[in-house]
Each structure stands twice: as C-alpha cells, then as structure tokens.
C-alpha cells in the first residue's frame, strides 16, 4: 500500500491518499463537520459501452440500470441498511463514471462498510431486476418531457454524432425491458474492478480506522486489471451545426456548444482552467456580451459550463431566448473579437480571483469536495491543486487557446421552438 499526504495552505485543505495493493484508491480528507460524506466512484459511466480488451458491448442504459440495482446486497437493500444506521444514501450515473455515496452524522464506519460491501458484492435477483424496469421506464419518460434535457442531448448529437455520448444515459424503454440479471452481473464483473474505483471520505474521521476498514473490505476482492471502457462511434468532427425542433415550450430553449477536443490529445487541468476562465470572460455575468445581449432582449436566461470526459471536451452556453440564432451570431462575433484583440489583464486577473473564491466556497461542503476529488482523480488530476492551476494560467495561453480551438466550424446550436411558431 502506498500512502501520500498533502496539504494546501491557500485553501486550508489537506488529504491522505492511500493506494492499496489491488489498485483501489482512497482519499481521506479531514474536515470539522457534523455530517461526514463518503463516495465511491467507478470509472464506468453511461457512455462507456465498449470494452477495449474483450470487445464486449453493453448498450447505453446498462450502467444506469446497474447503478439502480447495486443497492441489492446479500444482506438486504443497502438503501434500508444505510437508513437503519442514520445515513442518507444516493447514486448517480454520469457519462464517464458511476458514483455511490452517503452522508450521516453517526455510525460513519458502519456505513462505510455497507458502501464498500455493496460495490463489491451486489446481488441481483430476477424479481428485483424485473420490478426495477417500471421505475426506470418512468424515469426515462420524465426526462423526455424536460425540454432542457432534450435540447442538451440534441446538442451532444450535433457535436459528437449518434453515439453513446449523445444518448440518454437511462437508455430506451425497449432496451430496459430486455435487461437480465445475467447481463448486469457480466457488466459488473467487467467494469467494477478495484483498480477502477476510488473512495473518498470527508469529515471528522479517524484516518487509521478508515484505512484498516477499507483494507479489510477489499481483502477478499480479486485483484487484476478491470476492463477499459470507452464510447465508440464518436464522430471526428461535429455532425451538424444546427438542429431545431418544435415542442411544448413557452419560449425557445437553446443550447450552444463549442467542441474543443482534438484527436489523440488528452485535456490537461491547465487547459480546462483556461477554458473556464475564457467562458467566464466571454459569457459570464460580468462580461460585456452578457449585458449587451440582455439589454437587447437576445436572451432571458443563460448559463455557461465546460466539461471533459473520455475523449470529449466542450463548453456550452444554454438558456432561454426568443432569438437563439441571433444570440449565436453575436456569441461567435465576440469570440472573433477577443481572438483578435485579446483580453484585458484586469478582467483576466479578476476572473481568476472569482474562480478561486468559488473553489474555496466549494471546499466547505464535504459532498462537493468528494465529488470534485473523484472527478479530478479519474482524469488523472488532483482537485486540490486546481486553485493553483487556475492562478497559474497565463493570459497569452488562454488567448492562444481561444484562437486555435474556439473555431466557428466547431460551434453547434440545438433549439426547441414553441410549437405555436411552427404554425
């Protein structure tokens, strides 16, 4: 087992990272809170449908179905076991990972035992798999009725083509009804391997006790490398630049995306930080564009975001606008303008300061800390280094990135217009 300890003065944070012999990684983050939080991230998400080593395919919807059923253990429903020990548990399936978590005020170590047991020893019965299908079918329908969700999925399809990346993570109702316990077991065996998992515990915790408890829980788990999963069929360039449909919305809902990945290139934390700064400067509330377009009535609400997972890297601006195409035209012009004239040093430094403030804010919450640590770990980075990375981004590097990656041909927009406008 390898133990690393680090502390970070500027954010007043520290952690201990333990890598066990079978590759299972554990972060222990001390924090003076009443309600500690723990999460296990599995490096297998909704769009990871193809196993590189075996070629076996698990269609979109499998990872999410598995997440629902992982709470079934030989000792009973883990959800109820957590509740009996005063913990609130949950799980989610992202594009590139599945995360199981709980928070509690007492019985941390007992709850941690349950969490570790369920991710390694889940037990599926035909009956429980069958009864889950109706629930997931309703979840699929609920998302299908959400215009923002549909708009986002459609944007992903424009940027990455018809691929697992752009599909609904829950799968389709037809596929869900074909899932069997055998399929789920096969998928779990292939994807849920200790070297593909990371545990993060944050709170008033006894470090040694967590290490011992984790060691004991994983001692019976097979070692060896787990499968490497990835989303196949990602188009090399955007499949289209605009998609517009009509739906039951009051005003047009839009999502504009800028595809930033380049084939074979792994996104660094530095590049990610630069894009976060750029997006703030271009479309944040303190940007010239935000005020200018809001005053003109070119949007009602907008929000920006940037994401990277597997081979994808993109930034988005989404919101509600009566004139989404005019919004895109102005947003593209602004990119060209800044690519030519550059950012002001004052704006650049102020934006970095605000992002630093947001990161320190986010460190208050054990949940936010654990989720960020897991996400960064899976990208091969360290979340606690990120504030320093943001501070180190040079204006010239951000400007270069803006010039080379924010290209017109990589900008796509998905729109849902009110169906009344169709008439």
């Amino acid at each position, binding site marked *: 087992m390898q133990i690393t300890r680090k502390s970070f003065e500027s954010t007043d944070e520290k952690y201990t990272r333990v890598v066990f012999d079978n590759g299972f990684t554990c972060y222990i983050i001390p924090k003076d809170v009443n*309600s500690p939080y723990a999460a296990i991230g599995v490096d297998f998400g909704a769009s990871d449908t193809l196993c590189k080593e075996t070629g076996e395919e698990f269609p979109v919807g499998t990872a999410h179905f598995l997440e629902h059923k992982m709470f079934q253990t030989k000792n009973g429903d883990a959800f109820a076991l957590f509740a009996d020990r005063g913990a609130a548990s949950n799980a989610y399936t992202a594009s590139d990972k599945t995360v199981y978590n709980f928070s509690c005020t007492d019985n941390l170590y007992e709850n941690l035992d349950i969490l570790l047991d369920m991710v390694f020893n889940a037990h599926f019965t035909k009956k429980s798999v069958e009864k889950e*299908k109706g629930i997931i079918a*309703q979840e*699929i329908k609920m998302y299908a009725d959400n215009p923002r969700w549909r708009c986002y999925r459609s944007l992903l399809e424009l940027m990455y083509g018809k691929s697992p990346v752009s599909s609904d993570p829950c799968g389709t109702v037809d596929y869900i009804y074909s899932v069997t316990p055998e399929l789920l077991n096969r998928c779990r065996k292939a994807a849920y391997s200790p070297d593909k998992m990371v545990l993060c515990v944050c709170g008033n915790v006894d470090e040694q006790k967590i290490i011992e408890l984790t060691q004991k829980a994983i001692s019976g788990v097979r070692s060896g490398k787990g499968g490497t999963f990835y989303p196949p069929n990602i188009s090399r360039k955007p499949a289209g630049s605009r998609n517009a449909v009509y739906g039951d919305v009051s005003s047009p809902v839009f999502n504009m995306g800028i595809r930033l990945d380049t084939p074979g290139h792994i996104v660094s934390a530095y590049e990610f930080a630069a894009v976060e700064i750029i997006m703030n400067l271009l479309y944040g509330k303190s940007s010239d564009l*935000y005020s200018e377009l809001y*005053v003109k009535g070119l949007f009602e609400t907008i929000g920006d975001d940037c994401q990277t997972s597997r081979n994808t890297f993109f930034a988005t601006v989404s919101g509600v606008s009566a004139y989404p195409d005019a919004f895109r035209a102005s947003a593209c012009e602004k990119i060209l303008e800044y690519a030519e004239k550059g950012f002001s040093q004052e704006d650049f430094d102020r934006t970095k300061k605000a992002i630093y*403030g947001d990161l320190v804010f986010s460190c*208050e919450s054990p949940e936010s800390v654990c989720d960020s640590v897991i996400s960064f770990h899976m990208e091969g980075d360290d979340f606690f280094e990120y504030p320093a990375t943001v501070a180190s981004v040079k204006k010239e590097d951000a400007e270069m990135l803006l010039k080379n990656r924010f290209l017109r041909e990589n900008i796509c927009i998905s729109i849902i217009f009110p*169906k009344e406008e169709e008439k």
Partner: protein
Amino acid sequence: MSFSPVCLSEGVRYTHVETNRGKTDSLCVSFRVPLDPVSLAAVTLISKILIRGTMSFPDTVSICRECEDNYGCSVDIAHDRRGREISLTFMLSYLRNSFAFSGEDIAERAVKLLSEFIFSPYLIDGAFNAEYTEREKTALCALISSIKNSKPSYALYRANALMCPGEPIAVSLYDSADTVRSLTPEYLASFFADVVKTAPVDIVYAGNADVNRMLELVNEHLKFSPRAVCKPSPVRRRTPGQVRTFVEEASASQSTLVMGFRLGGDFNRKDFNDLVLFETVLSLSPVSKLFTNVREKLSLCYYCSSNIDRHNKIMYINAGIDYANSKKAQKAILKQIKDISDGMISAEEFDNAISFNVIANKAICDDASSLSQFYLSQVLRGVYLTPEDECDLFKKKGVKGLIRVAKRISLDTVYILKGNFDANNQKEL
C-alpha cells in the same frame, strides 16, 4: 438552550450565530410584507430590478465585477411566502478575511455592497430606471409563461388553483402577468422605499466574527428606523366536502398525478415537529412509505413526493405515472396515509424518521449559510430553538403525535395532467 434575537429598535431584530466551521460568512436581511396579488408581483419584480444596479454600481457588469473582485462574494435577493405574508430576503455570502491574498477586509466591503442594494438602489428622479424596469417585466412575463415547460410544476400550479380559489395559497405569480405589466418604475420605487422604512426586519448573521464587530458593521451599514409590527390575520380555508377530480391534457410522455389534502392542527409551534415526522415517515426518509411501497414495491413511478405548506395547512402529493395506473396510484397513496393514521408505523420507520431529522438539524451547523437560513426561519416562526434544541425535541417525540396528524388529514382534490404525446418517438399517444 434557546437563543434570543437582539432588538435593535422596534420591529428590527438582530440574531448572531458564531461558528468557526467552514470558510465563509453569511448575512441575511429579511423584510416581511403582507401578501396580495399586487404585492407578490411587486416584490418579485423589485427583487429582479434591484440586482441590476445601485447608485455606486449602476449596472450588472459593475456589480458583478465588484463581487468577483471581492473573491466571488454573492448577494441573492429572494422571496418566500408564509401564509398571508411574503418575506423579501437579501442573502450575502463572502469568504472570510483569512483567505484574502493581501489582507483585504472582504467582510466590510461585502456588507457595504449589501447595504447599497437596500439603501441606495439605482433610482432616477425617485423612480427605478425605466429601461431596467421594462426589461425585467419582459423577463418576468417570460418566466411566468414558462411554467408549462415543467409538467410537474404546471400540474401543481393547476391543482392549487382548482383546489383553493380565493385562499391566500392560490395567489400565484403565474396568474399575474397583467399585474406585472401594469407596475410603473415610480410605483415600484415607492413600494420598495415603504418596505425598507416600515416593514418588520430581521438581520441574521452566521460566521466567525464576534458579536461586537458585527453590530458595529450593522450599525454603520444596515441601520433601520423603528417600525410597527402587526400580526397577520389567520388564513381562512374551505372545508373539504366531496373529493373533486380534474383531468386536463398536455403534450407529455408522462402523466402527473397531484392529490391535494387539507391538514388540521397548529403547525407553527405546537404540532410542528409531529407534522415534520409525519411527512418524513410518509415521503422524506429513505425508507418512507411512498418510496418503499408506491415506487419500489408497485413500480408505479420514479418519483412520488409530498409538498406541505404548513401555514395554509395543505399537503400535495405528486407523482409521474402512466395514466393507465392513475387509479392504482391514488389507492396506493391513500393506503399509506391510512396506515399511518391506523398506527401501522414500524419501529424501523419511526426510528428512521427521528434520525433523519436529527441528522438534518446537525448538518445545519456545518456551514454559515445553512445556519443563517435556519435561524432566520426560526425567528420568522417565532420559535427560538437552536438546531441542538430541535434534535432534542425530535428525540423526545413519540408515535402518537404523527398518528394524530394523519387522522386530521382529508383528501380534497385529485388533479391529473394526462400526457398525450410520446416525446421520445415524437408521436401522439
């Protein structure tokens, strides 16, 4: 051990909560305004106009840049309804001074900004900026019409309108587009000046500054004149008779079922914890009756949740379902309430409900923002109990209290928003 707010002057209270946990401080200033259709529209619109500018920072860009430069401090202006009152609350969060790069006083700069929003909004000749007002009216009307984008929200709004016409709970922003359009910059500025001058106000601070330092800042930047405090009149409600059922259609894949119930009891003080425990057993805890039986055992839905307005003594239960299952779902939901009123609550369910609420109250102490929200809610309720007191109170509760709550519940209205479109396959159902 209970706490007591300091009375700074008549109708102006200050509550100080000291904590070393976390990295941020939180300061709330909350005004109480009588609820009616015009005041609801005015308060909503004012909260949007205020955030556009102050006399020192007259536009969004300069305000946002001020916040960014002060390490991402934030000011949110929100409103909430409590029976016959609306609370208009300014919420400030900022990093503690120890995280500043060069010893700046983040706290004082942030409190000054908060004070600007309240005492120096951006006015021209005594009125709000006409351009900002018009723009925010358009934005608010767009928000009002967007209610139909979310089918669960729309179904709740319709159920509420059909169940409680004429009652305060039915006063809805979603019916007030015309009122919003009619409000002028002059009227809104005078309305807000009146709120600042006459509405009862509560200031709540949570953070690691000592009380003397905070009172110094409050006296310097948030000084309010004395004002009268009037108790709002009690809410009058319809007595439920025969259950009414309404079905409307919408372009949606999923149907939404809303069941509206009337509650009996005094939930502000006496029965408050019993009501919370009832709701926890019914729908909030991880082993709640609705989750375990309606979702997990019967697989009828993905979500089935409750929504209680204790001021108006109303409970809504809503679920996303297939229309064909609507009768089955209603029967299953009613059975869960009947089981509670018949005392069919297992020790596991009851213990879980107690521990769920104890945990929730303990977790409040982990950050300043949750603490300030909790204490503000307590002073508005007129209950001066700390999170620790609430934990002790829950631990002393027995099952009889929640049975009593369940026995006083009666179904009033069933509303179904029937989905008639398959969004995945783009075809009518």
